[in-house]
């Protein structure tokens, strides 16, 4: 009796294991690709890039990781592992982000002015204006540091960039030397 039940039990557990693994596999598919952490220094004409954004481009938009460069240093986590990962480096996104925050601040202050005319009060708006001013302060400081810096267009275009690297699982270092 025991010898007949044993293989059946095995089959039942195997089947249930397969079923669960299949369901879980569907859920995990998106995040199971190997990822690496890349850090290093970005230099422009031999000097650390004061501020900027570095982007690692995997196969398509879902495999893109972008982080800030601060005094040449950067740390990018969850970069998809693979060969020929293209890297772009730009300073323009700092100006774009500052402009976007400036624009939000201008609109929020306009709303505050209109509310004042309507003799109404809006506490969250006051808080938001303060937050936006703080953000702008940080970004304007970064803008000052990149003033006058213009990187060649190729460094900021995925299709034209000369910067490529192999990303492996785990931590690794990659320094980039940019030319004027």
């Amino acid at each position: 009796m025991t010898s007949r039940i044993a293989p059946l039990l095995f089959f039942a557990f195997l089947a249930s294991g397969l079923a669960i693994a299949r369901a879980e596999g569907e859920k995990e598919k998106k995040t199971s690709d190997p990822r690496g952490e890349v850090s290093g220094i970005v230099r422009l004409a031999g000097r650390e890039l004061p501020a900027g954004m570095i982007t690692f481009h995997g196969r398509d938009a879902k495999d893109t990781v972008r982080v800030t460069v601060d005094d040449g240093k950067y740390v990018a986590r969850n970069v998809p592992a693979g060969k020929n990962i293209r890297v772009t480096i730009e300073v323009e996104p700092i100006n774009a982000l500052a402009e976007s925050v400036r624009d939000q601040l201008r609109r929020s202050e306009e709303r505050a002015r209109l509310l004042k005319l309507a003799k109404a009060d809006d506490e969250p708006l006051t808080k938001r204006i303060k937050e936006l001013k703080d953000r702008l302060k940080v970004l304007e400081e970064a803008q000052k540091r990149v003033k006058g810096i213009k990187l060649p267009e190729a460094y900021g275009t995925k299709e034209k960039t000369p910067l490529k690297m192999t990303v492996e699982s785990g931590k690794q270092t990659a320094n980039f030397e940019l030319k004027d």
Partner: protein
Amino acid sequence: MSHFGSARKRRGLTLMQLLVLLALLLFLLGFLLAATARFRNASESVTSRNNLHQIMVGLINFANSPVDKLPPGSATWFPKKGLVANNSYGPCLFHILPFLEQDPLYKSTRKNIDGKPVYASWEAAGKSVKVFMAPGDPTWEQGSDRTSYLANELALPETGARLPNSFPDGISNTILIAEGYSQATDTVTFGGQTTTWKTDRRWWDNSTWKPAAGAVMFQVAPPVDAASSMLPQGFTPDSINVGLADGSVRTVDASCSSTTFYAACTPAGNDVLGNDW
């Protein structure tokens, strides 16, 4: 006694039959769970496309109204300039409310400012509009006044764009609205200090993005804490849905280049869309 025993034998299942049945059921359950997940994703994507379609119909109907212009993307006075009687203040999703069967909500924002009756979008703060939220948006919250749809500031300027004259690149080649997480998170490190900023994209206030040419023009299914406030975000890993100036909805593949996507954001860039469009 023996008669009773044989009856039990006929009606019941043997242990072997029971185990085989259990194994089969569990195996089928695996397929069922996988199929359910796929069906849910597909259903969310269809809902988002439907929402986008309704927003586009609202925009086109607005442009065909006596105003004869598309509303501005970002919050401003429209259709007249400044604080004048019966004017409206808000972003494009606010201006099109009457064209989305949301006339009562729009009218509820009427307010006197400096003795002038106007429609003010902030009076709708805290009000949720179903068509402005996509169930596939991972930052979606029930009853929230945020939005999963962003207006392109380049194509919807403050002065109001005219159809089709303001779109020399072609109305079927210009993006007006794109999907985007209702909450963006920017993490920056400057001066050795790392800061994280959260931006709520509210339909009545801050529901736009301003495309700037660069290496990254859109994101697809990024982690919630990496959704940039400067970019739109698709909700599935393989694409992003956008609404074009001809009123149609298009699914743009994740492999679309930033050059092509930017060209589709400019209404008068005199640029040609690449083969990856």
